[in-house]
């Protein structure tokens, strides 16, 4: 469905070349939930920007549904780490931003997003300003803004990274639940190993820069999953395995965050 082939990217910091990505390959199937974990600064957001078509790679290609979309923004919807909801737009108007950019009339767009508000558990917040929402609610609104774009692939860049751990757990349960109902095709960047195991069908582990795919681990836990699954031995085994894979480079990346 989504194929990322041999992507490489070199940045120039004050004229000094910095190889961020080297021959990254990645594949995501229809309605699959894939996570990417890797040390901070290894180029995950860079990879996302390339997949989203807003950053040209120095080599390689991005294919979605058999179509070359390298450098094109039509295939993926991006959810950034910070919610980036605009303080001057009411929550509902924030969620329709992409629709308005695509040329849809405001009224029509509002009608289109309306039913999602109850699905996303934020019904009643439509006419509030983002500053009136809690961090967790803001992330829900931010995901809604991403989902309503109707793009084939959702790219979630550490969506829960800035939340406190209680809210994060709550939103992980919520995302699991809503994904199992809606079955979007998702790539999630995270540095939370438990989150990766809990939500994903497969997990890509990246190396420090120049970043490559170090390992791909299939999480063959049954679906639908519930929060209880985190207490099973299989789950803990997967966690340990990922921790091990992740630790391999973390020891070589000491203090580099």
């Amino acid at each position: 469905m989504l194929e990322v082939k041999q992507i490489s990217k070199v940045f120039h910091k004050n004229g000094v070349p910095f190889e961020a990505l080297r021959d990254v390959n990645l594949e995501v199937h229809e309605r699959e939930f894939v996570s990417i974990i890797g040390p901070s600064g290894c180029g995950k957001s860079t990879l996302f920007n390339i997949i989203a078509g807003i950053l040209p790679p120095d080599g390689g290609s991005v294919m979605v549904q058999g179509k070359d979309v390298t450098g094109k923004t039509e295939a993926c919807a991006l959810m950034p780490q910070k919610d980036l909801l605009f303080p001057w737009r009411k929550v509902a108007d924030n969620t329709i931003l992409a629709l308005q950019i695509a040329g849809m009339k405001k009224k029509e767009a509002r009608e289109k997003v309306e039913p999602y508000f109850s699905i996303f558990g934020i019904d009643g917040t439509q006419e509030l300003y983002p500053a009136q929402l809690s961090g967790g609610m803001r992330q829900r609104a931010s995901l809604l803004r991403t989902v309503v774009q109707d793009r084939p692939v959702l790219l979630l860049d550490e969506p829960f990274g800035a939340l406190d751990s209680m809210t994060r757990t709550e939103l992980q349960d919520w995302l699991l639940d809503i994904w199992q109902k809606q079955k979007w095709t998702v790539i999630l960047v995270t540095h939370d190993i438990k989150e990766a195991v809990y939500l994903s069908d497969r997990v890509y582990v990246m190396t420090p820069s120049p970043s490559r795919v170090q390992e791909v681990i299939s999480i063959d836990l049954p679906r639908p999953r519930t929060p209880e699954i985190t207490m099973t031995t299989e789950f803990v085994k997967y966690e340990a395995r990922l921790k091990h894979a992740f630790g391999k480079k973390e020891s070589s990346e000491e203090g580099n965050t």
Partner: protein
Amino acid sequence: MKNNKTSVRCDSVRSLNVSASKKGGLQQAVRNGAPAVLGILFVFVIWEVAVNVTHVSVDVLPSPTRVFRMLLVNRDKFWMHLIPTLQETLIGLGATILVAVFISVLCDFLPTVRKFVYPILVVSQTVPVIVIAPLMVIWFGYGLFPKIIVIVLVTFFSIAVALTDGFDSTEPETVNLLRSMGATKWQQFYYVRLPASLPSFFTGLRIAITWSVTAAIFGEYVGAERGLGIFMQICKNDFRTDLVLGSVIIISAVSLILFGVVAILRRLFIPWAAVAKAGAKK
């Protein structure tokens, strides 16, 4: 999903707090304003007492009661001179906003233009108005036009900088997000950079207001047919200190009223600013 309900409830409580603090805003304005009013009254009282006790000549320092009496007696004259000053101030401000918006937007879209324009802007600020104003009279005479130019020159910088800063307050992540949605440069400007610049714009406007009144007065002072600036000069030459002080009071009042108008406009144009502030406090 049972968690959602509680968080919705807690969020609606938040919004209640916000609307409560909005109402409190009016009360607070009164509470903040009261000391200012009392302070000014206090100054007037001291002034009155001092004049009565020392019997200082009316040419040097007339009592405030006399100043206000003369304001009333000469109200037609004051009114006649106030109108052109107001006109200059408002037209000058309007012209400044137009020019500043045009140039800032141009600089925002065309970085090369920015590189040329910015140094000129900075240099223009080093030229004192005192030098400019007489020149304007030499070049353009005693009419409205030279005053407008002085006002634009004085206030342009604060508004242009406020706008530029406002446009630039957009984070690179936001630009990435918009681009991923397929937004054109113009859409990025319209949906983000423009609304993001409003708070900063109003801050700049608030500064520009006081300066534009001062610049109008100064422009008149150097040469005009009518206006509070030239009126003050005539009164000064006649040793009518009471009328000079009356003009000062009118000018302050005008500045204050314009200040208030900007505050109201700010509320109208960016109702979300109060909400965002209340949210940030939590």
